């Protein structure tokens, strides 16, 4: 574990080399710098996991950056079970996606730039998960947001892409503002920003009340909700979910890495890491659970009617993130992190398969223009199918174990909203299965609905893209087997592993209840698949008729409940109006320009008047001299001095 510093700093080195020398020297060999770096990080991460499983943890400060009175900020690393799992997730997905990008980004002009930003992102994400204090966490947080902006707007000459990049960054900013204030309150309360000190003292403040902006609030609730603001922004929960679908403008590897597996899960990581604070506040837990559940349902309904391949998967991501928050909100932090871990694999796989399809279809995204691709792209088809089984929660696949754990603990846990969110979660499971298989059937089955041009070019993707798909598929299917619950005869190793950090949420219920809940969720998944099969394979004309009959509902869902339009009218247009008319019109033009132009003009005018003293006539100068003498004499005589 002594080599743990290699994990974040190798990608940083790869970023620096690529960004400095990429344009001139490396060009399309840039991957030879980035991939070994991130692969070695992966190896060290696996070794670290082995050591953590053996029981070793580490909390070390490397370099003190700020030391001011009580306030100390340093670069420090904490390696415990939660970090170890996150390291595996980040480095595995990052390495595989780096390899995938060789094929996907082949021939692109900014090839070196892409790899340098991927390495920078990996560095920031690793700093985020390995931090041992809030300031470093915030640094990593902002860093991944920045890289997200760079990578979403990678095709910067396309206006929609650069707009999407801006949107992601700005919407994140709203969340990060609350997060920042949360860190301030933490410092004010605990006097430190180090996790170990904060969490150790948290219990002492369990009942403290605090005066915030004139309101008397429960301190732990306040802190938890402020921290959750950051999570809402970063993990695209309501109401800050609007950036994630637009982020699909970026290249598909970016969508896979950042907006599926790693960056968006940072919000869940935050809540899990801060579980001592969250557990002390019932209100915050309820807020988290309900936000997660509502977002989950909301996004799933939108995903039902979308036609854009990547957008369906994006809404699926929002929905699954809602699941993770649902879990954390009912106290099942371990289940939430478990779902994070399995979701990373199958969601990244779904995105990469989508990229493979786009690669074959020449960039086409509309699933209604695809069809019967399974005979042209067998590997892609099989891996995507397995990933979809996983996300639908079919028993035996990774997604089943994590989703089932969440639903059982929601139902049987101590949370007051447990049953409600369980019901919503089960409904979402049904919808998830439905839209995932709608996508599969429309894309891979049936008859080809695209143009002849596209049909000629249909081919399986190159090896550099296929091999990561297959490797991820192993994860998507088998990653869950470390967490097989006791009920099914497994050892629940994952839960045991995470117990020291995340606590253990026990479900209070009988075995019969547990079996029933499991059965209901499996039933929901299977019926979703069945309905999709019915509607898209057996009766393909049915969707069209339903769209016409429920056209209003369809329109609302298709337009994402008009949330973007609402924000535009409520927030964006007034802000732009204020900027144009008040800030530019008044304060810039009238006040600042007045000062900036006025002061020199005043000085000029003053000096114009002042130069009239120099008349060129000796008598005037003599009179001035005499007057000067008189003034001094007067001062001295009248003893004013």
């Amino acid at each position, binding site marked *: 574990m002594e080599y743990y510093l290699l994990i974040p700093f190798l990608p940083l080195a790869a970023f620096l080399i690529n960004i400095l020398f990429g344009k001139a020297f490396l060009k399309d060999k840039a991957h030879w710098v980035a991939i070994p770096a991130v692969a070695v990080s992966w190896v060290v991460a696996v070794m670290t996991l082995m050591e953590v499983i053996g029981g070793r943890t580490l909390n070390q400060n490397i370099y003190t950056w700020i030391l001011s009175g009580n306030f100390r900020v340093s670069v420090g690393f904490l390696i415990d079970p939660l970090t170890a799992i996150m390291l595996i997730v980040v480095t595995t997905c990052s390495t595989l996606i780096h390899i995938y990008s060789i094929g996907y980004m082949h021939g692109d002009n900014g090839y070196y730039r892409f790899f340098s930003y991927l390495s920078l992102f990996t560095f920031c994400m690793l700093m985020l998960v390995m931090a041992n204090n809030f300031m470093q966490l915030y640094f990593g947080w902002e860093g991944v947001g920045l890289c997200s902006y760079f990578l979403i707007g990678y095709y910067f000459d396309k206006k929609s892409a650069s707009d999407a990049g801006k949107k992601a960054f700005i919407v994140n900013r709203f969340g990060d503002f609350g997060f920042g204030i949360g860190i301030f309150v933490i410092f004010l309360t605990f006097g430190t920003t180090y996790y170990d000190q904060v969490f150790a003292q948290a219990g002492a403040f369990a009942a403290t009340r605090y005066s915030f902006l004139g309101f008397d609030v429960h301190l732990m609730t306040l802190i938890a909700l402020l921290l959750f603001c950051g999570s809402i922004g970063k993990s695209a929960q309501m109401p800050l979910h609007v950036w994630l679908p637009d982020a699909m403008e970026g290249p598909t590897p970016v969508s896979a890495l950042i907006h599926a597996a790693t960056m968006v899960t940072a919000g869940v990581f935050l809540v899990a890491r801060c579980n001592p604070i969250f557990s002390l506040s019932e209100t915050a837990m309820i807020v988290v659970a309900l936000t997660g559940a509502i977002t989950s349902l909301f996004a799933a309904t939108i995903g039902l009617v979308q036609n854009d391949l990547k957008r369906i998967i994006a809404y699926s991501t929002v929905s699954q993130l809602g699941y993770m928050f649902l879990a954390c909100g009912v106290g099942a932090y371990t289940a939430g992190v478990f779902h994070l871990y399995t979701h990373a694999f199958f969601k990244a796989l779904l995105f990469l398969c989508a990229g493979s399809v786009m690669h074959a279809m020449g960039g086409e995204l509309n699933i209604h223009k695809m069809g019967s691709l399974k005979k042209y792209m067998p590997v892609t088809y099989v891996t995507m199918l397995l990933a979809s089984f996983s996300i639908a929660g079919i028993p035996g696949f990774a997604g089943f174990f994590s989703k089932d754990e969440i639903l059982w603990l929601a139902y049987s846990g101590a949370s007051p909203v447990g049953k409600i969110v369980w019901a919503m979660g089960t409904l979402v499971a049904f919808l998830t299965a439905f839209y995932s298989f709608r996508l599969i059937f429309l894309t891979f089955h049936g008859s080809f609905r695209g143009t002849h041009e596209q049909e000629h070019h249909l081919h399986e993707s190159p090896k550099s893209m296929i091999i990561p798909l297959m490797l991820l598929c192993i994860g998507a299917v088998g990653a869950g087997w470390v967490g097989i619950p006791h009920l099914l005869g497994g050892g629940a190793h994952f839960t045991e592993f995470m117990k020291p950090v995340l606590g253990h949420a026990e479900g209070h219920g009988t075995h019969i209840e547990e079996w029933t809940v499991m059965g209901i969720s499996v039933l929901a998944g299977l019926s979703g698949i069945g309905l999709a099969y019915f509607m898209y394979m057996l009766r393909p004309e049915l969707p069209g008729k339903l769209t016409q009959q429920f056209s209003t509902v369809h329109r609302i869902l298709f337009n994402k409940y008009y949330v973007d339009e609402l924000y535009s009218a409520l927030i964006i247009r007034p802000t732009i109006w204020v900027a144009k008319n008040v800030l530019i019109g008044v304060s810039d033009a009238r006040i600042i320009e007045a000062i900036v132009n006025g002061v020199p003009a005043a000085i000029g005018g003053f000096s114009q008047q002042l130069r009239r003293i120099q008349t060129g006539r000796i008598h005037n100068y003599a009179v001035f001299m005499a007057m000067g003498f*008189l003034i001094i004499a007067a001062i001295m*005589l009248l003893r004013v001095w």
Partner: protein
Amino acid sequence: MNMLPQLFFGYFAAALIVMSLLVITRKNPVHSVMWMLLLFFHIASMYLFLNAEFIAAIQVIVYAGAILVLFLFVVLLLNLKDELETDRFIGSWPAGLLVSAAIFVSLAAALQSLVLGQKGNFTVALVQKITHTKALGQILYTEYLFPFEIASLILLIAVIGAIVLAKKRMRSH
């Protein structure tokens, strides 16, 4: 007759003031120079009154004899015909009057707080015994030799400067 010193002083003071006023108010510059000559003689006798016969001699020789002659030369050199018709004073002469009156008032007011220093050892009797010139010479060539040499340098510069400034430009052949 112990009022005699005061009477003498009164005459000289009045003469000095009247003559200085005349100097500055004449239209004809030559008249101004003449009145100044008379003024300098009165000042010289004032010095005699104050037991400084060497200074009186110098006043007459240098001031009246050299400087004023120089002034007269220049006045006669600049052939000023229209001087008698034009205005003597500038337009804003009341301001100048005010300022100079204020200067006099401030100087007079400063006199109220005059504190004399320690008396030296060149009593009147001593100076009369070894003559003023010898006394001055004794100090000048011992204690104040350096300023004396510098004064001679200043005079040298004046000689050179006056020649350079006043000579006509040479046409280059």
